[in-house]
């Protein structure tokens, strides 16, 4: 079973990395922010599987913290971006910050 769990962890790491590569290309800031979600689910699953495979229970705590931090990073992103755009001009007059 340990072998299977390691394989699963490896697979999850692979999908996580592919996802990160895709997210790196953006094109918008919101697209990049999806990384927080990706880590919040795939990252949590990866850590939980590793905790079981390597018998390191403390990795579960890391998983929990990662899930909580995912929300905070999203919240920080949203408040920051919304404020910056709001300062520039009225929200309906903004022509959008997409650079694609």
């Amino acid at each position: 079973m340990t072998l299977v769990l390691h394989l699963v962890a490896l697979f999850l790491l692979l999908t996580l990395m592919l996802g990160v590569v895709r997210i790196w290309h953006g094109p918008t800031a919101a697209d990049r922010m999806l990384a927080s979600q990706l880590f919040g689910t795939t990252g949590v699953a990866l850590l939980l599987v590793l905790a079981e495979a390597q018998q390191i229970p403390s990795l579960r705590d890391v998983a929990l913290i990662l899930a909580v931090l995912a929300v905070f990073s999203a919240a920080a992103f949203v408040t920051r971006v919304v404020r910056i755009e709001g300062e520039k001009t009225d929200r309906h007059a903004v022509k959008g910050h997409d650079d694609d």
Partner: protein
Amino acid sequence: MIDGLIFGLQILLLVSGCFFFALGTLGLFRFNDTLCRIHALTKIDNLGLGLVILALLTMTPSVASGLKTLLIWWVALAASATSAHLVARAVRIHEPSLPDPLREREHKDG
């Protein structure tokens, strides 16, 4: 016999969990617009996480650590839904005016 069944079930859950995680990542590549990507990531990855966690629950050594895994699942679900909402809202605010297709669509729909 029972052990074999449980083992088979665990493998099935893990493999299908991996399958859905892979699909979630595929969604990032196939969908062109941010909101559709969020749809794919939120829903598919959550199912993947759920399946992996179900598999791990069958291996859990004690009630407490099983409960902990469930707790992590719940936090991850809430986290995923909340950040999906937050990012979607940020995308929406940045969208160029969108005169009122919302209202028109509402009439068509209702």
